[in-house]
């Protein structure tokens, strides 16, 4: 195990859980970022609660901007990826999360917390293909990134 940061991982995770909890108990909604983004960009067929989803997104983006000044080390500079690589990754994430109906927050955090078998299947699947992809890239193709 290298660079294992259990403390900050748990604290950060707890904050993510807190956010999802506020969103659920306060507004009755699932804090799935892919769904929230799709709604905010009108790329879904559910106009209900669009304003709240836009507000959530604004808060998320505001946090990113604030972290840039308050804690810039949470980000990495110097993109090690080429543009085509980044675009391919983004396309797959965008398409896949909509086809699959969720991402790490929607399925992994919210879905598993609800003991959803759909979310369990989804989470196991994207963890598996994620690990396989990294394995192929790093240890088979030996692309350094």
């Amino acid at each position, binding site marked *: 195990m290298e660079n294992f940061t259990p403390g900050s991982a748990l604290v950060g995770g707890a904050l993510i*859980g807190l956010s999802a909890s506020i969103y659920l108990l306060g507004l009755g909604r699932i804090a799935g970022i892919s769904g929230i983004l799709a709604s905010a*960009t009108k790329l879904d067929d559910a106009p209900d609660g669009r304003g709240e989803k836009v*507000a959530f997104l604004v808060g998320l983006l*505001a*946090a990113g901007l604030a972290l840039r000044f308050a804690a810039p080390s949470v980000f990495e500079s110097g993109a090690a990826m080429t543009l085509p690589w*980044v675009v391919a*990754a983004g396309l797959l994430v965008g398409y896949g999360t909509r086809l699959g109906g969720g991402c790490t*927050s929607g399925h992994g*955090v919210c879905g598993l917390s609800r003991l959803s078998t759909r979310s369990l299947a989804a989470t196991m699947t*994207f963890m598996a293909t994620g690990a396989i992809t990294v394995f192929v890239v790093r240890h088979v193709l030996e692309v350094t990134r």
Partner: protein
Amino acid sequence: MSSSKNARLVTALIAGAIFGVGLGIAGMTRPSKVLAFLDVGGAWDPSLALVMLGAIGVHVVAVAVARRRSSPLLAPKFSWPARTHIDMPLLAGAALFGVGWGLGGFCPGPALTTAASGNLAAIAFVVAMVGGMTIRHLQTRTTKRS
């Protein structure tokens, strides 16, 4: 706007901000850390497992409380997901998402948070991600029409 609508918007805003801060503290906004978690055959960093555990640990309490309630605190009803059975779109979508995650080290939340910090690669990722979402959206609309 009514005050209850204002309250909902502010609540959503605060929830989003806490989410973003949580992602940063957790290390999710660092692709190298995410990829190290997925790199089971290499220098494995299990930190992200604890991120998920920490999040679920807190959120299960909220789910338990929510299930006992007839409505949320500020909204008229809960929007619980409707689908229950595992189908091909779920599995195929999750599989594709995982590949993209393994390639870029970003999932939607961290990508947006990092893009907001001005990171050009993350901005490009977000643009492409919205592109992928658009392709899927157009695909579903075409299917509905035919």
